[in-house]
């Protein structure tokens, strides 16, 4: 087995608060309240510990990270520690002065989300009238000479507009565009029937992206994140559990992946009680699915075990009820038929309900999975 090294990147989810209500939000269903968030001093300590541990990049995210009035301070702490700083934002709470302040604090890169190419449709998916403001924010980012990535999460509802989403990214002066298919955890899992693209839509989207990459070479780089539902083998989720990535939640829990809290029998150490280094190298949650020793068959003897690292634990849980099972997306999984069944059902559904993200969902209880 490859020797364990330091992590490369840290996702700092500084708050779960967000004015948008996207029904595919990657946050957990049970959102953390503002009163439980880590304070400025704790976040700065975490960022310094991360840099000392070997983390190279920090992504400030949420929720909406700009709800924190101390975000400039956090960016300055990270920058002073030598970290590459990236802001992942919906943009709607920003004005030009604040963007300038973030830049002056040392922000290296600005990543702005859009929900679709037109305001009417984008605002519908976001549950918030913010599209027009985003266009203004993109202009300010360009004027302030900050590097801009546009991030578009795509799904059945906005995939017909993919060409115009790409055009909009060019118009907004982005150097980079992320076209990211919805990953079906948390809120997106509730809305899978409304969001999951058909196999034809997925093929069309891939062709559109490939043509645009060729046409826009040297002008706009397009990174493309596909769902693995229709694939032969699963994705190497997080590039392997506990190999490269750690995430810190608003309340200070440290996660091996953003969706790890969906796994019921794992408990996560908190930065209020342990150093990041202790957690990375020794915490039970990071050890649980690290490397290959935990793997069941057919993973354990598979020659792809250090290519896809057993796929995604949260997906295994969602479909099979067991986070330690082989990712059922893999055609070698004995439970692969559950994925086939779910995609077929989604392909048949036409008028599916779309549930917006909200704070009181926890009372309704989490769904048990759409494959069963």
């Amino acid at each position, binding site marked *: 087995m490859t020797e364990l090294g330091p992590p490369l990147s840290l996702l700092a989810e500084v708050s779960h608060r967000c004015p948008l209500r996207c029904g595919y939000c990657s946050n957990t269903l049970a959102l953390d309240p503002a009163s439980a968030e880590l304070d400025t001093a704790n976040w700065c300590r975490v960022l310094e510990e991360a840099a000392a541990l*070997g983390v190279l990049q920090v992504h400030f995210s949420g929720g909406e990270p700009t709800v924190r009035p101390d975000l400039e301070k956090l960016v300055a702490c990270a920058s002073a520690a030598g970290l590459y700083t990236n802001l992942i934002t919906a943009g709607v709470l920003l004005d030009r002065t604040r963007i300038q302040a973030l830049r002056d604090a040392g922000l290296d890169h600005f990543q702005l989300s859009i929900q679709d190419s037109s305001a009417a449709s984008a605002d519908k998916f976001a549950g918030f009238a913010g599209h027009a403001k985003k266009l203004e924010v993109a202009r300010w980012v360009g004027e302030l000479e900050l590097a801009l990535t546009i991030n578009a999460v795509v799904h059945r509802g906005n995939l017909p507009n993919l060409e115009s989403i790409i055009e909009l990214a060019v118009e907004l002066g982005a*150097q980079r565009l992320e076209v990211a298919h919805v990953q079906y955890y948390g809120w997106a899992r509730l809305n899978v029937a409304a969001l999951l693209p058909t196999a034809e839509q997925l093929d069309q989207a891939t062709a559109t992206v490939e043509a645009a990459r060729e046409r826009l070479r040297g002008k706009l780089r397009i990174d493309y994140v596909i769902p693995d539902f229709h694939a032969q083998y699963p994705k190497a989720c997080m590039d392997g559990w506990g190999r490269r990535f750690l995430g810190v939640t608003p309340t200070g829990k440290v996660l091996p992946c953003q969706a790890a809290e969906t796994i019921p029998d794992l408990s996560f150490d908190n930065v209020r009680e342990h150093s990041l280094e202790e957690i990375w190298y020794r915490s039970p949650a990071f050890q649980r699915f690290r490397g290959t020793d935990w793997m069941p068959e057919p993973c354990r003897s598979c020659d792809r075990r250090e290519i896809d690292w057993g796929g995604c634990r949260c997906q295994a849980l969602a479909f099979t009820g067991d986070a330690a099972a082989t990712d059922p997306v893999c055609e070698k999984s004995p439970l692969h038929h559950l994925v086939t069944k779910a995609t077929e059902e989604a392909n048949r559904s036409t008028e599916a309900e779309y549930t917006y993200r909200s704070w009181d969902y926890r009372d309704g209880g989490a769904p048990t999975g759409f494959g069963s």
Partner: protein
Amino acid sequence: MSTTLQISATSTPRLPRHVKFRFDETRDAWVILGPERVVFPDDIAVEILKRCDGEANVETIAVDLAQGFEVTVETVREDVLEFLRDMAEKGFIEG
């Protein structure tokens, strides 16, 4: 902000504002950092990148490297141009 792909011997390459090139003490290695990207350059790439300050042109960089490594400027110039064009296409270098 646009990336110039037309890098020639008279270009003065530099790293864009959003790209960081620094030594990482933890890994004892040079590293290039960009949006969602981490690259560990080899020794030759490190020597080229250290000289990309937006003032030295490609010819100057090639002459400097040729002296240090005791090879002909012609050989180095072609290698440097090829490397920088590749880096420019990836958005790590501006001309």
